[in-house]
Protein backbone atom coordinates (compact mmCIF):
# COMPACT_ATOMS: atom_id res chain seq x y z
CA UNK A 1 0.00 0.00 0.00
CA UNK A 2 1.40 3.36 -0.99
CA UNK A 3 1.65 6.17 1.51
CA UNK A 4 -0.40 8.44 -0.73
CA UNK A 5 -3.03 5.90 -1.65
CA UNK A 6 -6.48 7.40 -1.91
CA UNK A 7 -9.72 5.49 -1.67
CA UNK A 8 -10.48 4.34 -5.20
CA UNK A 9 -13.70 6.28 -5.61
CA UNK A 10 -12.17 9.55 -4.44
CA UNK A 11 -9.24 9.15 -6.83
CA UNK A 12 -11.59 8.56 -9.73
CA UNK A 13 -13.81 11.45 -8.65
CA UNK A 14 -10.84 13.83 -8.38
CA UNK A 15 -9.49 12.79 -11.79
CA UNK A 16 -12.92 13.13 -13.35
CA UNK A 17 -13.21 16.63 -11.93
CA UNK A 18 -9.80 17.52 -13.39
CA UNK A 19 -10.85 16.10 -16.75
CA UNK A 20 -14.05 18.10 -16.66
CA UNK A 21 -12.12 21.29 -15.94
CA UNK A 22 -9.74 20.53 -18.82
CA UNK A 23 -12.64 19.86 -21.18
CA UNK A 24 -14.42 23.07 -20.24
CA UNK A 25 -11.14 24.97 -20.67
CA UNK A 26 -10.70 23.37 -24.08
CA UNK A 27 -14.12 24.66 -25.09
CA UNK A 28 -13.48 28.15 -23.74
CA UNK A 29 -10.07 28.91 -25.24
CA UNK A 30 -8.97 28.98 -28.85
CA UNK A 31 -7.47 31.10 -31.57
CA UNK A 32 -10.40 33.49 -31.39
CA UNK A 33 -11.29 35.19 -28.11
CA UNK A 34 -14.93 34.54 -27.42
CA UNK A 35 -16.46 35.62 -24.14
CA UNK A 36 -17.93 32.95 -21.89
CA UNK A 37 -21.27 34.72 -22.10
CA UNK A 38 -21.24 34.51 -25.89
CA UNK A 39 -20.30 30.82 -25.86
CA UNK A 40 -23.01 30.02 -23.32
CA UNK A 41 -25.52 31.96 -25.38
CA UNK A 42 -24.53 30.04 -28.52
CA UNK A 43 -24.69 26.75 -26.64
CA UNK A 44 -28.20 27.51 -25.40
CA UNK A 45 -29.44 28.10 -28.89
CA UNK A 46 -29.14 31.83 -29.32
CA UNK A 47 -28.64 32.87 -32.93
CA UNK A 48 -24.93 33.61 -33.08
CA UNK A 49 -23.60 31.87 -36.17
CA UNK A 50 -19.90 32.50 -35.62
CA UNK A 51 -19.86 31.43 -31.98
CA UNK A 52 -22.01 28.39 -32.73
CA UNK A 53 -19.75 27.18 -35.53
CA UNK A 54 -16.61 27.75 -33.49
CA UNK A 55 -18.07 25.97 -30.49
CA UNK A 56 -19.83 23.05 -32.13
CA UNK A 57 -17.90 22.45 -35.36
CA UNK A 58 -14.39 23.25 -34.18
CA UNK A 59 -13.89 23.16 -30.42
CA UNK A 60 -16.33 20.41 -29.46
CA UNK A 61 -14.99 17.68 -31.82
CA UNK A 62 -11.47 18.67 -30.90
CA UNK A 63 -12.19 18.40 -27.18
CA UNK A 64 -13.96 15.07 -27.57
CA UNK A 65 -11.03 13.70 -29.54
CA UNK A 66 -8.50 14.95 -26.99
CA UNK A 67 -10.48 13.22 -24.23
CA UNK A 68 -10.91 9.96 -26.14
CA UNK A 69 -7.39 9.73 -27.56
CA UNK A 70 -5.85 10.69 -24.22
CA UNK A 71 -7.94 8.10 -22.38
CA UNK A 72 -6.95 5.41 -24.85
CA UNK A 73 -3.25 6.21 -24.66
CA UNK A 74 -3.27 6.41 -20.86
CA UNK A 75 -5.14 3.12 -20.57
CA UNK A 76 -2.92 1.37 -23.13
CA UNK A 77 0.15 2.53 -21.22
CA UNK A 78 -1.23 1.22 -17.92
CA UNK A 79 -2.25 -2.12 -19.45
CA UNK A 80 1.05 -2.64 -21.29
CA UNK A 81 3.09 -1.73 -18.22
CA UNK A 82 1.07 -4.19 -16.20
CA UNK A 83 1.20 -7.03 -18.69
CA UNK A 84 4.85 -6.65 -19.60
CA UNK A 85 5.81 -5.76 -16.03
CA UNK A 86 7.95 -3.03 -17.50
CA UNK A 87 7.66 0.57 -16.32
CA UNK A 88 8.74 1.95 -19.71
CA UNK A 89 6.15 0.12 -21.80
CA UNK A 90 3.61 2.28 -23.61
CA UNK A 91 2.34 2.63 -27.18
CA UNK A 92 4.78 5.26 -28.41
CA UNK A 93 7.90 3.85 -26.75
CA UNK A 94 7.09 0.39 -28.11
CA UNK A 95 6.56 1.77 -31.63
CA UNK A 96 2.85 0.89 -31.71
CA UNK A 97 1.71 4.46 -32.32
CA UNK A 98 4.17 4.99 -35.15
CA UNK A 99 3.19 1.70 -36.76
CA UNK A 100 -0.47 2.75 -36.56
CA UNK A 101 0.51 6.06 -38.17
CA UNK A 102 2.19 4.11 -40.96
CA UNK A 103 -1.06 2.23 -41.55
CA UNK A 104 -3.02 5.47 -41.56
CA UNK A 105 -0.59 7.10 -43.96
CA UNK A 106 -0.81 4.12 -46.32
CA UNK A 107 -4.61 4.35 -46.26
CA UNK A 108 -4.76 8.09 -46.87
CA UNK A 109 -2.03 8.69 -49.39
CA UNK A 110 -2.58 5.76 -51.67
CA UNK A 111 -6.31 6.32 -51.95
CA UNK A 112 -7.31 3.24 -49.94
CA UNK A 113 -9.24 5.42 -47.45
CA UNK A 114 -11.48 6.63 -50.28
CA UNK A 115 -12.77 3.09 -50.89
CA UNK A 116 -14.58 3.00 -47.56
CA UNK A 117 -14.41 5.12 -44.40
CA UNK A 118 -13.55 2.06 -42.33
CA UNK A 119 -10.29 1.52 -44.24
CA UNK A 120 -8.40 4.26 -42.41
CA UNK A 121 -8.87 2.91 -38.86
CA UNK A 122 -8.60 -0.64 -40.21
CA UNK A 123 -5.17 -0.08 -41.71
CA UNK A 124 -4.01 1.88 -38.68
CA UNK A 125 -5.16 -0.98 -36.45
CA UNK A 126 -3.43 -3.42 -38.75
CA UNK A 127 -0.20 -1.48 -38.47
CA UNK A 128 -0.46 -1.41 -34.69
CA UNK A 129 -1.22 -5.13 -34.50
CA UNK A 130 1.67 -6.01 -36.76
CA UNK A 131 4.08 -3.93 -34.69
CA UNK A 132 2.95 -5.53 -31.42
CA UNK A 133 3.31 -9.01 -32.88
CA UNK A 134 6.77 -8.13 -34.18
CA UNK A 135 7.66 -6.68 -30.80
CA UNK A 136 6.68 -9.81 -28.89
CA UNK A 137 8.63 -11.96 -31.31
CA UNK A 138 11.71 -9.74 -31.09
CA UNK A 139 11.79 -9.45 -27.31
CA UNK A 140 10.69 -13.05 -26.71
CA UNK A 141 11.31 -14.35 -23.25
CA UNK A 142 14.24 -12.03 -22.53
CA UNK A 143 14.92 -11.39 -18.87
CA UNK A 144 15.96 -7.73 -19.06
CA UNK A 145 13.18 -5.20 -19.42
CA UNK A 146 15.51 -3.20 -21.65
CA UNK A 147 15.34 -5.85 -24.38
CA UNK A 148 11.71 -4.99 -24.85
CA UNK A 149 12.44 -1.27 -25.05
CA UNK A 150 15.22 -1.84 -27.57
CA UNK A 151 12.92 -4.00 -29.65
CA UNK A 152 10.35 -1.21 -29.40
CA UNK A 153 12.88 1.31 -30.65
CA UNK A 154 13.65 -0.94 -33.62
CA UNK A 155 9.96 -1.37 -34.46
CA UNK A 156 9.25 2.33 -33.97
CA UNK A 157 12.19 3.45 -36.08
CA UNK A 158 11.16 1.09 -38.84
CA UNK A 159 7.62 2.48 -38.75
CA UNK A 160 8.84 6.10 -38.83
CA UNK A 161 11.09 5.32 -41.77
CA UNK A 162 8.20 3.55 -43.49
CA UNK A 163 5.95 6.56 -42.91
CA UNK A 164 8.47 8.97 -44.40
CA UNK A 165 9.11 6.67 -47.32
CA UNK A 166 5.39 6.20 -47.99
CA UNK A 167 4.83 9.95 -47.99
CA UNK A 168 7.84 10.58 -50.20
CA UNK A 169 6.64 7.94 -52.65
CA UNK A 170 3.08 9.22 -52.66
CA UNK A 171 2.21 11.72 -55.38
CA UNK A 172 2.05 14.53 -52.84
CA UNK A 173 4.31 17.57 -53.17
CA UNK A 174 3.63 18.61 -49.60
CA UNK A 175 4.92 15.40 -48.01
CA UNK A 176 7.30 17.08 -45.55
CA UNK A 177 4.55 18.91 -43.67
CA UNK A 178 2.33 15.88 -43.67
CA UNK A 179 5.12 13.73 -42.23
CA UNK A 180 5.50 16.15 -39.33
CA UNK A 181 1.83 15.98 -38.43
CA UNK A 182 1.80 12.20 -38.48
CA UNK A 183 4.96 11.82 -36.43
CA UNK A 184 4.28 14.47 -33.81
CA UNK A 185 0.52 14.35 -33.67
CA UNK A 186 -2.02 17.14 -33.77
CA UNK A 187 -5.71 17.65 -33.13
CA UNK A 188 -5.89 20.82 -35.18
CA UNK A 189 -8.82 21.18 -37.57
CA UNK A 190 -10.51 17.93 -36.60
CA UNK A 191 -14.23 17.56 -37.24
CA UNK A 192 -16.99 15.21 -36.14
CA UNK A 193 -16.10 12.95 -39.07
CA UNK A 194 -12.91 12.17 -37.19
CA UNK A 195 -14.77 11.65 -33.92
CA UNK A 196 -16.92 8.99 -35.58
CA UNK A 197 -13.83 7.24 -36.92
CA UNK A 198 -11.96 7.22 -33.63
CA UNK A 199 -14.64 6.78 -31.00
CA UNK A 200 -15.92 3.28 -31.89
CA UNK A 201 -12.36 1.94 -32.12
CA UNK A 202 -11.35 3.54 -28.85
CA UNK A 203 -14.47 2.27 -27.08
CA UNK A 204 -13.89 -1.27 -28.30
CA UNK A 205 -10.18 -1.20 -27.50
CA UNK A 206 -10.73 0.28 -24.05
CA UNK A 207 -13.31 -2.37 -23.14
CA UNK A 208 -10.90 -5.16 -24.05
CA UNK A 209 -8.14 -3.63 -21.96
CA UNK A 210 -10.28 -2.88 -18.90
CA UNK A 211 -11.39 -6.51 -18.91
CA UNK A 212 -7.84 -7.61 -18.15
CA UNK A 213 -7.55 -6.21 -14.63
CA UNK A 214 -7.67 -9.45 -12.72
CA UNK A 215 -5.33 -11.25 -15.09
CA UNK A 216 -2.82 -8.42 -14.81
CA UNK A 217 -2.93 -8.59 -11.03
CA UNK A 218 -2.30 -12.32 -11.16
CA UNK A 219 0.60 -11.77 -13.54
CA UNK A 220 2.47 -9.70 -10.95
CA UNK A 221 3.20 -13.07 -9.28
CA UNK A 222 4.78 -14.39 -12.47
CA UNK A 223 3.35 -16.33 -15.38
CA UNK A 224 3.35 -19.71 -13.69
CA UNK A 225 1.61 -18.43 -10.59
CA UNK A 226 -0.92 -16.60 -12.73
CA UNK A 227 -1.70 -19.77 -14.61
CA UNK A 228 -2.01 -21.64 -11.34
CA UNK A 229 -4.53 -19.00 -10.26
CA UNK A 230 -6.61 -19.83 -13.30
CA UNK A 231 -5.56 -17.06 -15.68
CA UNK A 232 -5.75 -17.99 -19.32
CA UNK A 233 -2.52 -16.38 -20.46
CA UNK A 234 -3.15 -16.82 -24.18
CA UNK A 235 -6.55 -15.19 -23.98
CA UNK A 236 -5.17 -12.38 -21.86
CA UNK A 237 -2.38 -11.74 -24.33
CA UNK A 238 -4.76 -11.82 -27.26
CA UNK A 239 -7.18 -9.37 -25.62
CA UNK A 240 -4.32 -7.08 -24.74
CA UNK A 241 -2.81 -7.19 -28.21
CA UNK A 242 -6.05 -6.69 -30.08
CA UNK A 243 -7.43 -4.15 -27.63
CA UNK A 244 -4.31 -2.02 -27.77
CA UNK A 245 -4.10 -2.30 -31.55
CA UNK A 246 -7.75 -1.34 -32.18
CA UNK A 247 -7.78 1.46 -29.63
CA UNK A 248 -4.42 2.97 -30.49
CA UNK A 249 -5.04 2.39 -34.20
CA UNK A 250 -8.31 4.31 -34.10
CA UNK A 251 -6.75 7.09 -32.05
CA UNK A 252 -3.65 7.49 -34.19
CA UNK A 253 -5.70 7.39 -37.41
CA UNK A 254 -7.14 10.79 -36.52
CA UNK A 255 -4.50 12.36 -34.30
CA UNK A 256 -1.14 11.09 -35.54
CA UNK A 257 1.34 9.48 -33.16
CA UNK A 258 1.28 11.42 -29.90
CA UNK A 259 4.07 10.24 -27.66
CA UNK A 260 4.51 9.59 -23.97
CA UNK A 261 0.94 10.04 -22.69
CA UNK A 262 0.78 6.34 -21.88
CA UNK A 263 4.13 6.58 -20.12
CA UNK A 264 3.49 9.60 -17.94
CA UNK A 265 -0.02 8.95 -16.73
CA UNK A 266 0.35 5.52 -15.08
CA UNK A 267 3.44 6.75 -13.25
CA UNK A 268 1.56 9.74 -11.91
CA UNK A 269 -1.41 7.61 -10.93
CA UNK A 270 0.41 4.62 -9.41
CA UNK A 271 1.57 6.29 -6.14
CA UNK A 272 -2.03 7.28 -5.47
CA UNK A 273 -3.23 3.67 -5.61
CA UNK A 274 -2.34 0.34 -4.04
CA UNK A 275 0.00 -0.12 -7.05
CA UNK A 276 -1.79 -3.20 -8.36
CA UNK A 277 -2.13 -3.15 -12.16
CA UNK A 278 -5.90 -3.42 -12.05
CA UNK A 279 -6.21 -0.42 -9.79
CA UNK A 280 -4.50 1.93 -12.21
CA UNK A 281 -6.35 0.96 -15.40
CA UNK A 282 -9.45 3.15 -15.12
CA UNK A 283 -7.72 6.06 -13.34
CA UNK A 284 -5.03 6.03 -16.06
CA UNK A 285 -7.70 6.34 -18.73
CA UNK A 286 -9.32 9.30 -17.00
CA UNK A 287 -5.93 10.86 -16.25
CA UNK A 288 -4.83 10.39 -19.86
CA UNK A 289 -7.94 12.21 -21.03
CA UNK A 290 -7.17 15.09 -18.68
CA UNK A 291 -3.48 15.23 -19.62
CA UNK A 292 -3.98 15.23 -23.38
CA UNK A 293 -6.81 17.76 -23.17
CA UNK A 294 -4.59 20.04 -21.09
CA UNK A 295 -1.67 19.54 -23.49
CA UNK A 296 -3.94 20.36 -26.42
CA UNK A 297 -5.10 23.45 -24.58
CA UNK A 298 -1.42 24.29 -24.13
CA UNK A 299 -0.59 24.15 -27.84
CA UNK A 300 -3.42 26.59 -28.49
CA UNK A 301 -2.48 29.01 -25.73
CA UNK A 302 1.33 29.05 -26.14
CA UNK A 303 1.85 31.94 -28.57
CA UNK A 304 3.67 30.57 -31.62
CA UNK A 305 3.22 31.68 -35.22
CA UNK A 306 2.33 28.15 -36.27
CA UNK A 307 0.44 25.97 -33.88
CA UNK A 308 2.70 23.66 -31.87
CA UNK A 309 2.37 19.97 -32.51
CA UNK A 310 0.92 18.00 -29.62
CA UNK A 311 3.81 15.55 -29.59
CA UNK A 312 6.16 18.42 -28.81
CA UNK A 313 4.35 19.21 -25.57
CA UNK A 314 3.90 15.59 -24.51
CA UNK A 315 7.56 14.85 -25.25
CA UNK A 316 8.69 17.67 -22.98
CA UNK A 317 6.49 16.24 -20.25
CA UNK A 318 7.29 12.61 -20.95
CA UNK A 319 11.01 12.42 -21.57
CA UNK A 320 11.95 13.32 -17.95
CA UNK A 321 9.71 10.50 -16.69
CA UNK A 322 11.27 8.15 -19.22
CA UNK A 323 14.82 9.12 -18.20
CA UNK A 324 14.03 8.78 -14.50
CA UNK A 325 12.95 5.20 -14.99
CA UNK A 326 15.80 4.45 -17.35
CA UNK A 327 18.23 5.56 -14.66
CA UNK A 328 16.60 3.25 -12.15
CA UNK A 329 17.03 0.38 -14.59
CA UNK A 330 20.74 1.07 -15.00
CA UNK A 331 21.79 -1.46 -12.44
CA UNK A 332 20.50 -4.14 -14.81
CA UNK A 333 22.77 -3.15 -17.70
Amino acid at each position, binding site marked *: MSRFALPRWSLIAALSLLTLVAAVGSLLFGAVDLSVARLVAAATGEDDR*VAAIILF*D*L*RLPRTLLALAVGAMLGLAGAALQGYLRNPLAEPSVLGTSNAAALGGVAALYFGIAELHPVMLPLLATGGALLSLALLFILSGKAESPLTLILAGIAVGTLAVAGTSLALNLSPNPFAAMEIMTWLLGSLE*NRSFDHVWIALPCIAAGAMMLLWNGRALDALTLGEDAAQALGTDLRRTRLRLLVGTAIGVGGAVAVSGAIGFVGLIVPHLIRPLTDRSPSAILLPSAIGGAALLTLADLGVRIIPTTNELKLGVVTAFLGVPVFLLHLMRERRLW
Partner: protein
Amino acid sequence: MRRYGLLAVAALVGGAGVLWAASPVPSAKAPAIPQRIVSINLCADQLVLALADREQIAGLTKNATDPEMSGEAVKARGIALLSNSAEQILAIEPDLIVGMPASRSAALAALPKQNYPLLDLATANTLNEIHASIRETAAAVGHPERGAALIARMEGELAGLPKPGKGRVAAYYQRRGYMTGTGTLIDELMTRLGLVNLAGQLGKPPLSQLSLEEMVAAEPDFLIVESATDVVTDQGSEMLHHPAIKDIPRISIPQAWTVCGSPAYTAAARSMAAQIARIDRGRS
Protein backbone atom coordinates in the same frame (compact mmCIF):
# COMPACT_ATOMS: atom_id res chain seq x y z
CA MET B 1 16.64 48.12 -73.17
CA ARG B 2 17.26 50.13 -70.07
CA ARG B 3 16.53 47.34 -67.65
CA TYR B 4 18.94 45.01 -69.34
CA GLY B 5 21.86 47.31 -68.77
CA LEU B 6 20.88 47.93 -65.19
CA LEU B 7 20.73 44.23 -64.49
CA ALA B 8 24.18 43.72 -65.92
CA VAL B 9 25.52 46.38 -63.61
CA ALA B 10 23.61 44.98 -60.68
CA ALA B 11 24.95 41.53 -61.31
CA LEU B 12 28.51 42.81 -61.46
CA VAL B 13 28.14 44.88 -58.31
CA GLY B 14 26.32 42.07 -56.57
CA GLY B 15 29.36 39.85 -56.96
CA ALA B 16 27.47 37.23 -58.90
CA GLY B 17 30.48 36.86 -61.11
CA VAL B 18 31.59 38.38 -64.35
CA LEU B 19 28.72 37.63 -66.65
CA TRP B 20 29.74 38.92 -70.00
CA ALA B 21 33.40 39.45 -69.45
CA ALA B 22 34.54 37.77 -72.62
CA SER B 23 31.75 38.56 -75.03
CA PRO B 24 30.30 42.00 -75.58
CA VAL B 25 27.02 42.67 -73.78
CA PRO B 26 24.32 41.46 -76.15
CA SER B 27 22.09 44.29 -77.16
CA ALA B 28 18.39 43.56 -76.93
CA LYS B 29 17.82 45.64 -80.03
CA ALA B 30 19.71 43.48 -82.46
CA PRO B 31 20.18 40.03 -81.01
CA ALA B 32 21.30 37.11 -83.00
CA ILE B 33 18.12 35.13 -82.41
CA PRO B 34 19.00 32.59 -79.68
CA GLN B 35 18.60 28.98 -80.78
CA ARG B 36 19.33 27.09 -77.55
CA ILE B 37 17.26 28.79 -74.88
CA VAL B 38 17.29 27.27 -71.40
CA SER B 39 14.81 28.30 -68.76
CA ILE B 40 15.75 27.62 -65.17
CA ASN B 41 12.58 28.85 -63.52
CA LEU B 42 8.98 27.63 -63.73
CA CYS B 43 7.66 31.14 -64.38
CA ALA B 44 10.29 31.78 -67.03
CA ASP B 45 9.26 28.48 -68.67
CA GLN B 46 5.79 29.84 -69.33
CA LEU B 47 7.03 33.08 -70.85
CA VAL B 48 9.56 31.33 -73.05
CA LEU B 49 6.93 28.84 -74.23
CA ALA B 50 4.51 31.64 -75.00
CA LEU B 51 6.98 33.77 -76.92
CA ALA B 52 9.77 31.68 -78.46
CA ASP B 53 9.53 29.15 -81.26
CA ARG B 54 9.54 25.56 -80.06
CA GLU B 55 12.77 24.87 -81.95
CA GLN B 56 14.51 27.64 -80.04
CA ILE B 57 13.91 26.01 -76.64
CA ALA B 58 16.59 23.58 -75.47
CA GLY B 59 15.51 22.99 -71.90
CA LEU B 60 12.86 23.78 -69.29
CA THR B 61 12.49 23.07 -65.60
CA LYS B 62 11.20 19.72 -64.42
CA ASN B 63 7.76 21.13 -63.50
CA ALA B 64 7.15 22.69 -66.92
CA THR B 65 4.90 19.84 -68.08
CA ASP B 66 2.86 19.68 -64.87
CA PRO B 67 -0.59 21.10 -65.61
CA GLU B 68 -1.07 21.79 -61.91
CA MET B 69 1.89 24.13 -61.85
CA SER B 70 2.24 25.67 -65.30
CA GLY B 71 -0.32 27.34 -67.49
CA GLU B 72 1.67 26.34 -70.59
CA ALA B 73 2.16 22.71 -69.61
CA VAL B 74 0.67 21.28 -72.81
CA LYS B 75 3.09 23.23 -74.98
CA ALA B 76 6.04 22.02 -72.93
CA ARG B 77 5.55 18.36 -73.76
CA GLY B 78 8.42 16.88 -75.69
CA ILE B 79 10.93 19.53 -74.72
CA ALA B 80 13.89 18.43 -72.60
CA LEU B 81 13.32 18.94 -68.89
CA LEU B 82 16.36 19.82 -66.80
CA SER B 83 16.79 19.10 -63.12
CA ASN B 84 18.60 22.41 -62.58
CA SER B 85 21.99 20.76 -62.63
CA ALA B 86 25.07 22.53 -63.89
CA GLU B 87 26.09 19.49 -65.93
CA GLN B 88 22.97 19.49 -68.05
CA ILE B 89 23.25 23.19 -68.74
CA LEU B 90 26.90 22.78 -69.66
CA ALA B 91 26.06 20.02 -72.12
CA ILE B 92 23.46 22.16 -73.89
CA GLU B 93 25.72 25.19 -74.21
CA PRO B 94 22.77 27.54 -74.19
CA ASP B 95 22.86 30.87 -75.97
CA LEU B 96 20.26 32.31 -73.60
CA ILE B 97 19.45 31.39 -70.04
CA VAL B 98 16.22 32.79 -68.64
CA GLY B 99 15.67 32.80 -64.90
CA MET B 100 14.07 34.69 -62.09
CA PRO B 101 16.74 35.88 -61.65
CA ALA B 102 19.10 33.71 -63.67
CA SER B 103 22.24 35.28 -62.26
CA ARG B 104 21.56 34.01 -58.76
CA SER B 105 21.08 30.39 -59.78
CA ALA B 106 23.14 27.90 -57.81
CA ALA B 107 23.51 25.70 -60.87
CA LEU B 108 25.02 28.52 -62.89
CA ALA B 109 27.33 29.51 -60.06
CA ALA B 110 28.74 26.00 -60.19
CA LEU B 111 29.80 26.38 -63.81
CA PRO B 112 33.45 27.28 -64.29
CA LYS B 113 32.95 30.06 -66.79
CA GLN B 114 29.74 32.00 -66.66
CA ASN B 115 29.72 33.64 -70.03
CA TYR B 116 26.25 32.62 -71.12
CA PRO B 117 23.89 35.42 -72.01
CA LEU B 118 21.42 35.69 -69.16
CA LEU B 119 17.97 37.16 -68.88
CA ASP B 120 17.06 38.08 -65.33
CA LEU B 121 13.33 38.43 -64.91
CA ALA B 122 11.83 40.04 -61.84
CA THR B 123 8.98 38.36 -59.97
CA ALA B 124 5.80 39.85 -61.41
CA ASN B 125 3.19 40.74 -58.81
CA THR B 126 1.07 43.08 -60.92
CA LEU B 127 -0.30 43.15 -64.43
CA ASN B 128 2.18 45.89 -65.38
CA GLU B 129 5.05 43.76 -64.17
CA ILE B 130 3.74 40.81 -66.16
CA HIS B 131 3.69 43.03 -69.24
CA ALA B 132 7.26 44.14 -68.54
CA SER B 133 8.40 40.51 -68.24
CA ILE B 134 6.65 39.66 -71.49
CA ARG B 135 8.35 42.55 -73.28
CA GLU B 136 11.77 41.65 -71.92
CA THR B 137 11.41 37.96 -72.76
CA ALA B 138 10.01 38.66 -76.22
CA ALA B 139 12.94 40.92 -77.01
CA ALA B 140 15.50 38.47 -75.64
CA VAL B 141 14.15 35.51 -77.62
CA GLY B 142 14.13 37.63 -80.78
CA HIS B 143 10.38 38.11 -81.26
CA PRO B 144 9.50 41.52 -79.80
CA GLU B 145 6.40 41.73 -82.00
CA ARG B 146 4.95 38.62 -80.34
CA GLY B 147 5.32 40.27 -76.95
CA ALA B 148 3.43 43.34 -78.12
CA ALA B 149 0.72 41.13 -79.62
CA LEU B 150 0.38 39.06 -76.46
CA ILE B 151 0.09 42.18 -74.31
CA ALA B 152 -2.56 43.58 -76.66
CA ARG B 153 -4.48 40.30 -76.47
CA MET B 154 -4.36 40.33 -72.67
CA GLU B 155 -5.52 43.95 -72.56
CA GLY B 156 -8.39 43.00 -74.84
CA GLU B 157 -9.42 40.10 -72.64
CA LEU B 158 -9.40 42.29 -69.56
CA ALA B 159 -11.10 45.26 -71.22
CA GLY B 160 -14.70 44.28 -70.68
CA LEU B 161 -14.12 42.55 -67.35
CA PRO B 162 -16.79 43.48 -64.78
CA LYS B 163 -16.06 44.31 -61.16
CA PRO B 164 -18.53 41.95 -59.49
CA GLY B 165 -16.83 42.03 -56.08
CA LYS B 166 -18.52 45.26 -54.96
CA GLY B 167 -16.20 45.68 -52.00
CA ARG B 168 -16.94 42.29 -50.54
CA VAL B 169 -14.24 40.48 -48.59
CA ALA B 170 -12.41 37.44 -49.93
CA ALA B 171 -9.64 35.27 -48.51
CA TYR B 172 -7.23 33.25 -50.63
CA TYR B 173 -7.08 30.19 -48.39
CA GLN B 174 -4.50 27.52 -49.06
CA ARG B 175 -3.70 24.11 -47.66
CA ARG B 176 -3.06 24.07 -43.92
CA GLY B 177 -4.62 27.49 -43.50
CA TYR B 178 -2.06 29.59 -45.32
CA MET B 179 -3.53 32.86 -46.52
CA THR B 180 -2.16 35.05 -49.27
CA GLY B 181 -1.70 38.69 -48.35
CA THR B 182 -1.24 42.05 -49.99
CA GLY B 183 1.47 42.89 -52.51
CA THR B 184 0.86 39.64 -54.35
CA LEU B 185 -0.59 38.75 -57.71
CA ILE B 186 -3.63 37.26 -55.97
CA ASP B 187 -4.18 40.53 -54.16
CA GLU B 188 -4.03 42.44 -57.43
CA LEU B 189 -6.55 40.05 -58.97
CA MET B 190 -8.91 40.61 -56.05
CA THR B 191 -8.63 44.38 -56.38
CA ARG B 192 -9.26 44.15 -60.12
CA LEU B 193 -12.49 42.28 -59.44
CA GLY B 194 -13.61 44.67 -56.72
CA LEU B 195 -12.88 42.30 -53.86
CA VAL B 196 -11.16 43.28 -50.63
CA ASN B 197 -8.41 40.95 -49.43
CA LEU B 198 -9.13 39.67 -45.91
CA ALA B 199 -5.39 39.48 -45.24
CA GLY B 200 -5.11 43.20 -45.89
CA GLN B 201 -8.01 43.92 -43.56
CA LEU B 202 -6.40 41.88 -40.80
CA GLY B 203 -2.99 43.44 -41.45
CA LYS B 204 -1.35 40.11 -42.25
CA PRO B 205 1.95 39.70 -44.14
CA PRO B 206 2.07 38.40 -47.75
CA LEU B 207 1.86 34.83 -46.45
CA SER B 208 0.32 34.10 -43.09
CA GLN B 209 -1.44 31.23 -41.39
CA LEU B 210 -5.02 31.70 -40.29
CA SER B 211 -6.72 29.04 -38.19
CA LEU B 212 -10.17 27.78 -39.03
CA GLU B 213 -11.50 29.50 -35.94
CA GLU B 214 -10.13 32.84 -37.03
CA MET B 215 -11.51 32.31 -40.52
CA VAL B 216 -14.97 31.55 -39.14
CA ALA B 217 -14.80 34.64 -36.95
CA ALA B 218 -13.63 36.82 -39.84
CA GLU B 219 -16.69 35.84 -41.90
CA PRO B 220 -15.33 36.55 -45.40
CA ASP B 221 -17.85 36.69 -48.26
CA PHE B 222 -15.75 34.40 -50.45
CA LEU B 223 -13.00 31.85 -50.06
CA ILE B 224 -10.68 31.60 -53.03
CA VAL B 225 -9.03 28.18 -53.14
CA GLU B 226 -6.70 26.33 -55.48
CA SER B 227 -8.65 23.91 -57.63
CA ALA B 228 -6.15 21.18 -56.68
CA THR B 229 -7.60 21.24 -53.16
CA ASP B 230 -11.16 20.65 -54.40
CA VAL B 231 -10.66 16.98 -53.57
CA VAL B 232 -9.27 15.78 -50.27
CA THR B 233 -5.94 14.07 -50.85
CA ASP B 234 -4.25 14.59 -47.50
CA GLN B 235 -4.56 16.35 -44.16
CA GLY B 236 -3.50 19.67 -45.65
CA SER B 237 -6.35 19.77 -48.15
CA GLU B 238 -8.78 18.05 -45.77
CA MET B 239 -8.69 21.19 -43.65
CA LEU B 240 -10.27 23.23 -46.44
CA HIS B 241 -13.24 20.87 -46.39
CA HIS B 242 -13.94 21.26 -42.69
CA PRO B 243 -17.68 21.60 -41.96
CA ALA B 244 -17.01 24.89 -40.17
CA ILE B 245 -16.23 26.73 -43.42
CA LYS B 246 -18.39 24.79 -45.83
CA ASP B 247 -21.03 27.54 -45.99
CA ILE B 248 -18.65 30.23 -47.25
CA PRO B 249 -19.02 30.55 -51.05
CA ARG B 250 -15.97 29.33 -52.92
CA ILE B 251 -14.08 30.50 -55.93
CA SER B 252 -11.76 27.82 -57.21
CA ILE B 253 -8.93 28.60 -59.62
CA PRO B 254 -6.01 26.47 -60.78
CA GLN B 255 -2.76 27.27 -59.06
CA ALA B 256 -1.12 27.15 -62.50
CA TRP B 257 -2.77 30.45 -63.38
CA THR B 258 -1.63 32.40 -60.35
CA VAL B 259 1.61 30.90 -59.08
CA CYS B 260 3.50 32.93 -61.69
CA GLY B 261 2.90 36.31 -63.23
CA SER B 262 2.12 34.91 -66.67
CA PRO B 263 -0.26 35.33 -69.62
CA ALA B 264 -2.69 33.07 -67.69
CA TYR B 265 -3.45 36.12 -65.52
CA THR B 266 -6.38 36.99 -67.76
CA ALA B 267 -7.78 33.46 -67.53
CA ALA B 268 -7.66 33.71 -63.74
CA ALA B 269 -9.36 37.11 -63.72
CA ARG B 270 -12.12 36.02 -66.08
CA SER B 271 -12.73 32.75 -64.25
CA MET B 272 -12.98 34.53 -60.90
CA ALA B 273 -15.40 37.11 -62.30
CA ALA B 274 -17.56 34.37 -63.80
CA GLN B 275 -17.59 32.39 -60.57
CA ILE B 276 -18.59 35.42 -58.49
CA ALA B 277 -21.39 36.13 -60.94
CA ARG B 278 -22.55 32.51 -60.72
CA ILE B 279 -22.54 32.59 -56.91
CA ASP B 280 -24.55 35.84 -56.96
CA ARG B 281 -27.06 34.38 -59.41
CA GLY B 282 -27.46 31.34 -57.18
CA ARG B 283 -28.29 33.60 -54.25
CA SER B 284 -30.85 35.78 -55.90
